[in-house]
């Protein structure tokens, strides 16, 4: 007994110490008490707007940047975000919006998020953030600050979408599409579906960051525009050079870009005028690309062999029937010639802007390491060399089917 007593005491003491530690849940926050941010939009504040900042994170702004950003956040209102398709009853109460749109300004994104926190009661959480839209103005400035904050923050995931908008980004936070009750979730499903239908590459913020860090590749982002107030158009690729947006492409050039990269499935249709058969439309279903790189006279050269498989979608002026393999071959030949000029034009355009969105530098780096080590000592080196790279594109289209109409 006498030996047992101190042991029991020690055990009891241990248990009393352990009890609060094991049961204590410091981080518990009920879901109703969280302000879940679903989407963010970031705009630059026009220079003539001189409204003072709220001074939540600093007192004197003499030594800080004078340019400010305006951040608009879509916060989910607890209990109002519908979990499934709305039933007949809930459609009537559509006046109560499932999201709360809050707009704040700040010098940096983090500063703006702190200002936001100062204005709303519940602690904000970015864990469910799926869409960030930045205006073209922001993208044309440096993205380094945004990237730093978003990379550092453990709540942000690499599967978030970062979009560049034509015009003001905050307009996207106010759209009210009929297909989904939460606007950002609509934008999200739009992007996800465009990926699965071959309209856009899988270009999450993580993909963007990886491309941005690589020496032999420049990053690109989806470029979106608003049409008719509520419709969102994927208007092209916003491509970057030296961490800043350098230009944008036309929507059809997304298809061209995906063809160069051999990304499946094919999702773009092409309207073209053939020499003998009038205007036709072809639909691309599959893409396959073989890439070769070589060094000739101390300059990198790349050759792309693109194989497309498609269908004849429409024959616009059907005086001459398309009813034989020869006719299909004619369409294929004309398509190849015309799209080849489109692709060459796209490459020329990005070369002028020093933006290697195709990752040609990565090919050189991995296949010609000796050349790479000798000539490239940073991302800048490649981006300036990129404009003088020789690119040779060969395109082959195979039209397999013509639909249900025989001639």
């Amino acid at each position, binding site marked *: 007994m006498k030996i047992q007593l101190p042991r029991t005491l020690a055990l009891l003491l241990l248990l009393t110490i352990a009890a609060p530690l*094991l049961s204590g849940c410091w981080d518990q926050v009920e879901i109703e008490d969280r302000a879940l941010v679903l989407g963010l939009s970031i705009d630059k504040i026009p220079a003539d707007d001189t409204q003072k900042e709220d001074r939540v994170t600093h007192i004197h702004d003499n030594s800080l940047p004078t340019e400010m950003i305006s951040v608009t956040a879509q916060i989910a209102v607890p209990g109002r975000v519908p979990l499934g398709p709305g039933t007949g009853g809930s459609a009537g109460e559509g006046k109560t919006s499932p999201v709360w749109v809050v707009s704040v300004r700040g010098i940096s994104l983090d500063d703006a998020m702190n200002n936001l926190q100062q204005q709303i009661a519940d602690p904000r959480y970015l864990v469910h953030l799926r869409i960030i839209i930045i205006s073209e103005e922001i993208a044309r400035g440096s993205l380094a600050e945004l990237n730093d904050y978003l990379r550092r923050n453990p709540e942000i995931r690499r599967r978030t979408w970062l979009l560049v908008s034509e015009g003001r980004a905050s307009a996207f936070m106010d759209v009210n599409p009929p297909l989904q009750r939460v606007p950002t979730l609509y934008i999200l499903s739009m992007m996800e579906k465009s990926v699965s239908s071959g309209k856009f590459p899988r270009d999450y913020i993580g993909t963007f960051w990886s491309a941005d*860090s690589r020496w032999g590749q420049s990053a690109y982002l989806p470029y979106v525009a608003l049409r008719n107030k509520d419709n969102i158009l994927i208007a092209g690729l916003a491509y970057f050079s030296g961490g800043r947006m350098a230009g944008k492409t036309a929507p059809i050039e997304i298809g061209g870009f995906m063809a160069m990269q051999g990304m499946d499935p094919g999702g773009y249709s092409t309207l073209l005028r053939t020499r003998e058969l009038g205007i036709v439309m072809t639909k691309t279903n599959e893409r396959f690309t073989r890439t070769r790189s070589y060094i000739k006279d101390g300059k990198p050269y790349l050759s792309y062999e693109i194989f497309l498989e498609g269908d004849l979608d429409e024959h616009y002026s059907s005086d001459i029937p398309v009813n034989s393999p020869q006719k299909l071959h004619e369409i294929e030949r004309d398509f190849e010639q015309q799209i080849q000029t489109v692709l060459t034009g796209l490459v020329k355009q990005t070369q002028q802007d020093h933006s290697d969105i195709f990752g040609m530098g990565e090919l050189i780096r991995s296949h010609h390491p000796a050349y790479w080590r000798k000539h490239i000592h940073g991302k800048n080196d490649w981006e300036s060399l990129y404009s003088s790279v020789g690119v040779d594109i060969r395109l082959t289209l195979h039209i397999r089917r013509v639909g249900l109409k025989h001639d």
Partner: protein
Amino acid sequence: MNNPRQITTLRAAAVISSTIIGVGILSFPRYMTEAGNSSAPLVAFCGVLFSFISYWLLASLCQRFPQETLFVFSRRLIGRPLAAIFTVVIMLLFIVLTGLTVRQFGDVATTVLYKKTPIEATIFLMLLISLLSSRRNVVKFSYIHFFYLPLIVGSILVTILLSLKNVDMLNLQPVLMAPSLQFWKGAQEATYLFQSSFVIVLLIPFMEKPGHAVRAGAWAIFLSGAIYVLIVIASVGIFGAEETKLLIYPTLEMARSAAFGEGFLERLDAIFIIIWVISVYTTIYTTYYISAYLLHKLLRFRDQRMASTVLLPVMFILAMLPSNVFESYRWALHLGNAGMMLMFGYPLLLWTVYLLRRHKEKVTS
């Protein structure tokens, strides 16, 4: 229960591999990429080979004394005082290693999981669990490891497999690189993770077939080595070398972006983190156990239970010493460096003495 030799070769291998897979798994790809860029998997592979050589040196010596642990037969080889000094140094190494490992665990947990939970609480609880389980004997120790290993290996493999589909082969080329100073430094840093394979020293006297110690270690080091190399391949393949260098925990980032189906099952990082906590526990458990065992041998306690209780505050204080993340990583690297010299040099010394003595015996007889 009377038979002390209860640890099978398979179970010994399980102890070693679950010990090796631990806290370092999260930042490992970054170290490898800093050393080798796209050749990071090669650097990691060389590290695994070196670790095995170092392990072989130790285990093959211990095999020759199947009845005793290293600390007992070293007394006969190099004399009591010198053996005691080395034992103290090894003990200190493992005490500090435990402290720093648990600190790195606390840092990750606070950054990623529990932002408001004080780091002291996470660290203390982890040490407390290790303390409680360190009071058991070696056989139970091996059973605990054997129980957790499939969980750890299985879930890490699932995460890697899910991520492999996003790997871009271009990121992994060129595979080979000219062995430069940086390359060897990276390979050396990789061996730090394998230092706890030292635990075989405790297991040999309890193994069913002590002669299989090298074999057990070979299985263990190549299993955990394969996992480490795969992790490097996956994260460099997904992110590219330059991006991997920017991430403080590339493996965690990889788990965070892994998805099963398109958005069908996302956020696998929650499961990954839980498993990672278990793998950290098995690592800390081993280093804690070694420290407690050595202390009990040095101070001649009846068993290591008292010793493990004494160690708790020491380790807790050590864990609280580094003032920031960078400092704890730097200390861990320095410790790894010291550990490598000790883990390689000490067996080498013992081997030399052993061979000299055997030679002398042969000559005299």
